[in-house]
């Protein structure tokens, strides 16, 4: 082996590392990253943290309803998303779609629902139905149809077609074949994905409160706008507890069904 040939992999690795470094430098430049500002401004953060303690736990009775609203927004949004994502996924899976036109329409709709961020959907629905948790539910359902529709369609496309063919040959109709051969095969995977979505939607429904879609997010924003940092720290603790509780519950459920 010649010297150049021996050095070639190393040169390629160096060139790759150099290119990656160049990409990182441009990213830092574009985002205006200035780590030194973090050091010089640390006293500002320390001041806010100081003013946040102790958390204002006397708000617990006022926090109950917004917390429930956040949880319910995520729950309703996820359930509605699952209910509508299933038919979209059936139409968007190559092995179950009844026609190529419906396949293209379903794939296109799913992509659109996914491409528009839930925050933008929330703004649209707030302008349609007003402030409150309901536009949050609508925003999360539409965005969830996009996210779940694609994943569900992929699960359906991966099913074992043997049982489907076997039941079709018994003379069973299309719907019966779907409910008896496709659904039992995909249901655990779909439930697992839906539970992950519920996790995501809890976090999303907190953020949606910032644009007027109710819940604990709205309380958090109001407290921040009024510089009530002890209230902010309390709401953050509530958020943390809510996210962890739902994460644990969905992980336990996933363990049971998968």
């Amino acid at each position, binding site marked *: 082996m010649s010297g150049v040939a021996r050095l070639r992999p190393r040169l390629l690795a160096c060139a790759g590392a150099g290119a990656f470094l160049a990409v990182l430098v441009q990213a830092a430049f574009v985002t205006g990253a200035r780590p030194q500002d973090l050091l010089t401004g640390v006293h500002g953060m320390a001041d806010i943290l100081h003013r946040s303690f102790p958390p204002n736990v006397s708000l617990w009775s006022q926090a109950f309803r917004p917390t429930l609203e956040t949880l319910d927004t995520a729950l309703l949004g996820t359930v509605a998303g699952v209910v509508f994502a299933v038919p979209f996924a059936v139409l968007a899976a190559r092995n179950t779609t009844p026609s190529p036109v419906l396949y293209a329409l379903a794939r296109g709709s799913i992509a659109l629902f996914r491409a528009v961020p839930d925050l933008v959907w929330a703004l649209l629905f707030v302008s349609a139905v007003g402030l409150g948790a309901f536009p949050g539910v609508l925003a999360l359902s539409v965005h969830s149809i996009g996210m779940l529709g694609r994943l569900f369609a992929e699960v359906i496309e991966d099913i074992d077609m043997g049982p489907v063919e*076997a039941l079709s*040959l*018994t*003379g*069973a109709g299309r*719907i*019966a*074949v779907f409910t*008896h051969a496709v659904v*039992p095969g995909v249901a655990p995977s779909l439930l697992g994905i839906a539970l992950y979505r519920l996790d995501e939607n809890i976090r999303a429904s907190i953020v949606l409160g910032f644009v007027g879609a109710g819940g604990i997010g709205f309380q958090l924003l109001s407290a921040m706008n009024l510089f009530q940092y002890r209230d902010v720290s309390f709401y953050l603790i509530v958020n943390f507890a809510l996210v962890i509780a739902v994460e644990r519950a969905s992980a336990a459920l996933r363990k049971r069904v998968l």
Partner: protein
Amino acid sequence: MDEPLLDVRDLSMSWPSAERPVLRNVSLRVRSGEFVAILGANGSGKTTFLKCIVRLVTPESGSILVAGQQMAGLTGAGLQRARRNVALISQSANLVKRRSVVANVATGSLGRRPEWWTSAGALPQSELELASRYLQTVGLEHLGTQRAATLSGGQAQRVAIARALAQQPQVLLADEPVANLDPEAADDILHLLRRLAREDGLAVCCVLHQPDLAIAYADRVVGFSDGSVAFDAVSSAVSQAMVDSLYRSEPAA
């Protein structure tokens, strides 16, 4: 003499890209209570022949009568109805692995029930009890509540047979049902198929790759060669030379 339950005449079929037809004027009759084995080399058209009967593929020409009902030319709801009379067991049992054994068997009856009745995905108690009886027929009533995923290959194939029985067909087709089984399990399955023909009056047509098993269990052996019937003889009349002639020159795939 009884009318045949399966009466196939002059069946021909070609794949669009193939140079030669897969089936050329194949005729076969199977009567109630008869167990017919089909032998032949790979690519001789055995599996395509069974697929034509259940209309998984569409033949170019020929007639397929199942219990007096013409299958050739049927589409949509007509084909769906006609398929109830003929069950197909494949090399793979094709069970829904996450469902119980008894639920898998009960799904065999879906075609006999109205669509609205079966669409919700539930199986009523009466249907599950009937399915248990079919499991008893194949000797697996004790495994009814187990998940299908836990079964051995031989057990899964027996469950597939029970599901086919739940369909209450008059013609039972089997495409290499013992290909993945050990010799003992293979004997069990073929013994069961022969019993179903003799005791329940089914017309059984079974594709096999083991000439010794075909001769031992079937009433008649049909040899396929290059898409046509090379011989159709009672098992006792099948000689080694006849069997050898089937495997001498395998057509190119």
